[in-house]
């Protein structure tokens, strides 16, 4: 939940850099969620959203289904998750144990300039639990976040609601944010099968 003295997104990201599981795949929502993460920890296994607000969580769910042996971490915002709250229900139903949802709760639409949310004070962890995700909790400090990242108890997805102060000043990412490049770089890094066109006798996905 939003409280008075809140850490920054960067404070949490510093912890995430240090606690990122081996072979983790990271999906980041639009705006600074992606720009700052690219500035602090760019790697091919990052999938950066450019826009498509509210769709980072369901995309990460799909990725977790397709890559069950790899940890998948998604950074989503409170405004974004309110746009597609049904995705929490689907995450609860699928219950992927390899999915960690980091839900930045800053009470505003930070990526579009800081407009207030319809309701900035929801207990999003309680909301996630009600949606069928028992491993959901509110986190208010980087230290508590570090501890939570090391806690692997329980089944299904892990939702950590990170109380943060808004960061509306746009971070300049150090890399090109070309969507198709992002996708191909990511798929190459994870060894995703390649589609072979029909004119080469394919028409199927085949191991690269």
């Amino acid at each position: 939940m939003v409280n008075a003295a809140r850490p920054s997104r960067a404070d949490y990201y510093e912890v995430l850099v240090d606690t990122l599981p081996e072979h983790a795949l990271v999906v980041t929502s639009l705006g600074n969620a992606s720009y700052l993460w690219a500035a602090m920890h760019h790697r091919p296994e990052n999938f950066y959203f450019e826009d498509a607000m509210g769709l980072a969580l369901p995309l990460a769910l799909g990725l977790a289904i397709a890559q069950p042996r790899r940890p998948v971490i998604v950074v989503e915002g409170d405004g974004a998750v309110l746009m597609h709250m049904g995705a929490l229900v689907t995450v609860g139903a699928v219950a992927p144990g390899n999915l960690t949802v980091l839900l930045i709760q800053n009470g505003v639409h930070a990526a579009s300039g800081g407009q207030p949310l319809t309701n900035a004070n929801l207990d999003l962890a309680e909301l996630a639990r009600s949606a069928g995700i028992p491993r959901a909790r509110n986190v208010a400090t980087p230290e508590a976040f570090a501890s939570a990242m090391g806690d692997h108890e329980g089944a299904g997805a892990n939702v950590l609601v990170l109380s943060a102060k808004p960061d509306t000043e746009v971070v300049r990412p150090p890399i090109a944010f070309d969507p198709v490049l992002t996708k191909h770089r990511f798929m190459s890094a994870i060894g995703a099968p390649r589609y072979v066109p029909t004119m080469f006798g394919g028409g199927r996905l085949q191991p690269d």
Partner: protein
Amino acid sequence: MVASGKQSADPHRPSEILETLKRLGFGVAIAVPDSWLGEILVRIEHEPTMRLVRATHEEEALAIACGTRLGGLRTAMFVQNAGLLSMGAGVVSLAQRYQFPILMLVSYRGTVEDPVFYHTPKGRVTEPVLRGLGLAYARSDRTRPIGPQVERAATYAEEASCPFALLLSQEDVQW
């Protein structure tokens, strides 16, 4: 129309759709049901080589589909055309922008063959909206086998690196 092979009467068109998906290596289907789609989704749920994910909204389903395809699974979606109308932002900002090849199998409600009157508003606007979105699509041809039409739609999606919607009639998809 999607061109296809010789003309013949399909024994059971929904079975042909499912068999084609399995033969082409589709590992997952993401769905939001309607009355025509209900049973084929149950059949997919019982397929050992496929997984069904039931989403709460079609734009959410599209994002899940992009995620499974990103992770290396050939992915189909089953939605009603109402879902195409409500997923426009996700189509342009995610699926098309990142060039995700997603096969959309769509129950095409509100055409003159549909007996349910309240679907007609969606039937009237579906194809103009798809053209406005630049979303590649075709209507199935009921005089030809459905399997090859599904295969060509799937091939188009992969080889043009984009989502492709195949608009299906009741007899195509209702089990």
